[in-house]
């Protein structure tokens, strides 16, 4: 198994709301390797969004450590307001362009403004990102002309335009019907098959079937499959063959 790209090691995150303390993540440990598609199921207020924000380095963990490509994201999060997202992490957003007349190719290229100085190069990369999201036919469309599903594909293209190693998608199928959901999930799976690590949260179990690994989150507590637990055990405690019992 390859080395983890992202690892959360005993991460706890609390919020204080008035007199109440809310534990959004409760001793969560998780590892994702490149090319893995991991789906986390949780109902409302289970801690899903916090999990992704901590994994993105936008939110600082109170306890534990978050490592991304050997960088300590716990430290990154302290200055995330100034630095923004780590350049190798993509975040699936949902909002349309500020200018309604903007064409989707330009909109997808927007995140490249600060890093790519050559406009032609930016547009070339945006075209490639739209192709990765299987949305090449939407290049010249404006936001108002798109269906909900098409908007999601465009946002997917924008999330991957900087060629991230890790894509974070919080409830990427929200508002879509069964057919559109499957089309969106198949696109995420295709990105993983091409080598990107994808961490996604969903409020519906049937949305997890195209993932490699599934987990559940409730009350900030992450539960993984027994096999994954065992895999951890085997690494920690190599079984002895023969010899003394």
């Amino acid at each position, binding site marked *: 198994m390859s080395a983890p790209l992202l690892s959360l090691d005993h991460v706890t995150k609390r919020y204080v709301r008035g007199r109440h303390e809310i534990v959004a993540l409760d001793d969560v440990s998780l590892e994702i390797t490149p090319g893995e598609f991991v789906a986390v199921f949780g109902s409302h207020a289970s801690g899903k969004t916090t999990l992704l924000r901590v994994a993105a380095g936008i939110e600082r963990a109170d306890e534990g450590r978050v490592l991304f490509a050997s960088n300590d994201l716990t430290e990154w999060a302290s200055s995330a307001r100034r630095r923004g997202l780590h350049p190798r992490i993509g975040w699936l957003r949902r909002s349309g362009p500020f200018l309604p007349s903007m064409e989707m190719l330009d909109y997808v290229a927007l995140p490249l403004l600060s890093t790519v100085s050559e406009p032609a190069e930016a547009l070339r990369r945006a075209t490639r990102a739209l192709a990765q999201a299987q949305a090449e036919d939407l290049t010249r469309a404006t936001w108002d002309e798109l269906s909900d599903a098409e908007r999601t594909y465009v946002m997917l293209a924008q999330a991957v335009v900087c060629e991230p190693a890790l894509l974070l998608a919080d409830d990427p199928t929200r508002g879509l019907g069964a*057919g559109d959901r*499957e089309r969106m999930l198949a696109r995420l799976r295709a990105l993983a098959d091409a080598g990107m690590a994808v961490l996604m949260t969903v409020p519906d*179990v049937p949305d997890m079937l195209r993932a490699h690994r599934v987990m559940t989150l*409730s009350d900030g507590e992450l*539960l993984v499959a027994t096999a994954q637990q065992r895999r951890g055990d085997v690494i920690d405690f190599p079984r002895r063959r023969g010899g003394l019992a």
Partner: protein
Amino acid sequence: MSVKHAVLGLVIERPGYGYELYQRLNQRVEGHEISERAVYPALSSLARSGWIQQSLRDGHAHRQRVWYESTPDGVDEFRGWMGRPSDEVASLRSDLRWKLALASVEDLPDLIEQTRAQERACVDRIEALTREPQPEPPRADDFDWRPIAQLLVRRSDVAHLQTQIEVLQAVRREMKATVRRHASRTARSR
């Protein structure tokens, strides 16, 4: 099957006659009708195991009726059952359901662990399904019904697991909250 242990739990809570235990059992687990025919064999079996003892007492109109009381062995057995993990793929209708109905605050930490084990079993099932080949998503401009139908069937296959996971999560959340409240009250009263 845990009707036996449910009946044992009720006898431990308060000794009684057979018919009365039958009524109490059905009050405790509403919407899950248990027939009288299941309760009497359970009582006999519990008595044979030495977990309850029976004696004759005068009932109405000087009729003698059988009175059931728990034994120390019975109390041990009941606590053991409460702490034993349920069959992992069992649905909430069986073991865990009875345990929830008959648990006291002291049993909750064990039951919290059991809801985790059951939820993990659900995750195992979903993960096994992810390893099966997935149907191609239908094209947006496709008029064929079959790919959509195949997909909907696949989605409905796992929908019941979501219900089960949601129930386990809700139950665990309430149990954890109860344990916390209980702990802080115990700490205050010291």
